[in-house]
């Protein structure tokens, strides 16, 4: 079942590569949060209340509700147009995303390790690289934040891949870290929206060497 969920997770990446609208990105992010919740939920060996609450908080409440709502609020507040405006055509994005997935599969095929669940590894690594790709090829600043969230989802899957029970404290730390980052990025995005006319990366080129 976990495998099914993870394959669906990969399909969401493909969908994100060809999606045109920012709202679609946000919905996909929310969906990824739900998928991650089920993955963790199934993987749990024993259900203990504290763990369950933490996971619920991290995936459903945070990844699927708080961040998407916040991003939607940012969209609305800054009057960001609904198109994603990639630098490359979606077709190329899709081909590159497919290449990323294939390459990570090939990479992970060369690794022999009992401590690692390979499919998690593949999903984690391709999500990570896809996030970086998303950041590099979209014109709007808010898509950078979304790319960052995609990377964070990849890291989440990676920490599942390693399977080692990370100390609760570290887990909590990560959650706060993501939360703080997204919040701060969002606040500054608002400021950028107030100061600049357009929320494009092209606007951020005033710092020069001369």
């Amino acid at each position, binding site marked *: 079942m976990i495998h099914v969920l993870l394959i669906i997770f990969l399909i969401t990446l493909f969908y994100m590569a060809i999606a045109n609208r920012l709202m679609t990105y946000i919905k996909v992010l929310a969906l990824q949060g739900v998928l991650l919740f089920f993955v963790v939920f199934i993987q749990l060996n024993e259900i203990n209340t504290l763990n369950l609450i933490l996971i619920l908080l991290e995936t459903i409440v945070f990844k699927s509700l708080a961040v998407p709502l916040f991003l939607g609020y940012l969209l609305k507040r800054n009057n960001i147009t609904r198109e994603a405006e990639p630098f490359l055509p979606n077709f190329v994005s899709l081909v590159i995303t497919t290449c990323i997935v294939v390459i990570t599969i090939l990479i992970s095929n060369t690794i022999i390790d009992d401590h690692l669940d390979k499919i998690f590894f593949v999903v984690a690594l391709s999500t990570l690289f896809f996030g970086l790709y998303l950041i590099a090829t979209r014109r709007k600043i808010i898509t950078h934040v979304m790319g*960052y969230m995609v990377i964070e989802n990849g890291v989440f899957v990676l920490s599942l891949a*390693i399977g080692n029970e990370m100390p609760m404290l570290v887990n909590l730390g990560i959650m706060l870290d993501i939360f703080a980052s997204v919040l701060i990025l969002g606040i500054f995005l608002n400021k950028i929206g107030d100061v600049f006319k357009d929320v494009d990366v092209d606007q951020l080129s005033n710092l020069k060497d001369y």
Partner: protein
Amino acid sequence: MIGIYLLGSFAIALSLFFSRNKLLVYTLLGLSLLVQALFTIYAGFHAGEIELIYFTYDSLGMILLVTLSIIAIPAAIHSYIYIENHKENPQARAIYLSSLVLLITAISAGYLSNHIAVTWIFTEITTLSASALIYHHRNKLALEGTWKYVFICAISITFIFIGILFLSLSLQHTGSDDLSFKNLLARSNELNPVWLRMAFLFIFTGFTAKLGLVPMFTAGIDAKDTAPAPAGALLASVLMNLGFVGIFRFYIVVANTPLLHWAQLVVGSAAFLSLFVATVYMLKVKNIKRMFAYSGIEHMGIVMLGVAAGGIGYYAAVLHVVLHAFVKSSLFFQFNQLYRVFQNKSIYHIGNYFKYNATGAMVLLLGFISTTAMPPSGLFVSEFLIFKSIFDTGHILLLVVVLLLLTMIIWSFGKNIFKILFIPVPDFDEQNIEIIKPWESVSQFLLLATAVYLGLNPPPFFVQLLNDSVSLLPG
């Protein structure tokens, strides 16, 4: 003690954040400096002890902690001058000082932590507090700089975390899950090399955002440019050292595994690329503050070349980091005075500084000599030792290229500095320029002198500490 220190400093930062009264604010700032000094002295008397599981007063941490505590004092003084000069409103002042204290505290704790995850957490805190400092001016440029800094640092922090995940995977093969540097070092021969490689790549890439190396150096440049000069001094010196600590401590672990040669290659090529990039930018840069920042990239490139070369290079690298912190912070402090005279950052609008502020001009001249590692400067010693270590490894060609790049840097640095010092700007209005009081430059002279003293005639305990901090490295 470190618990009390952290709690105390955080409490001070918090109360600073809510204080609007001028007297109270500066009292709190002084108090935080006092706490910092007391903590440093305490740490000095308890060398080698472990506190709260995650903190050790080891030699490397101690050296850098003392450096930080010394630089923190002029940073506070210049922040005071800066704030009073700009007549900042109480709210901006409170946020600025509170972030300053938080930054200093987080850097101290980051130096002393013996666990990579704890270093990671404090590095994150420095990002948050530094971003508040960078955004101090609340204008377009500050916004742009802050956004870039926060974003790149967020990505880097994530990278470090991925590296930590890989590291724990690598450690699982030894049946242990304790990620402290000591445990890693003890088990360095059992670590799985594949995952260790991945871990090193990600952690190294992540920390380069703080250290200022290729590939993540860009954010730091914009940050130092847009932050107020006293805060920029901290970003350009002690915060870079935090990145150095993160990489160096982990490098010690990797160096004790069969991956040493590979790690040398990675670090060496990143360092060489940084040097190259710094040269290219230095040749065309017209913004003085950014020029200082690029010079920092160059120095960190040299430092990491020393680390990659090994041998005497390790010793020289740590020494260079310390001396560079003193020199670069004094240059940034001086920049503020320069800016007050000319109200401009561009080389085209700055000139004949000796005429308007002779003391400050002396600082700039001495700072230039120090930064470019000309003989009386302490950096000459460390840089010379690093070149010697590269020579020892037999990479003569690399050394020649590095020296060529450095010559170009010195040329362009000197060209700009002498333009600032002696060549008058055409139609410059001399009527309303601000007179800078000579005492404001005293701290900078002291910092530069410290660098010379530590470099040319290092006291025995300092040498001892330096040797201790690199003693775990092979060769």
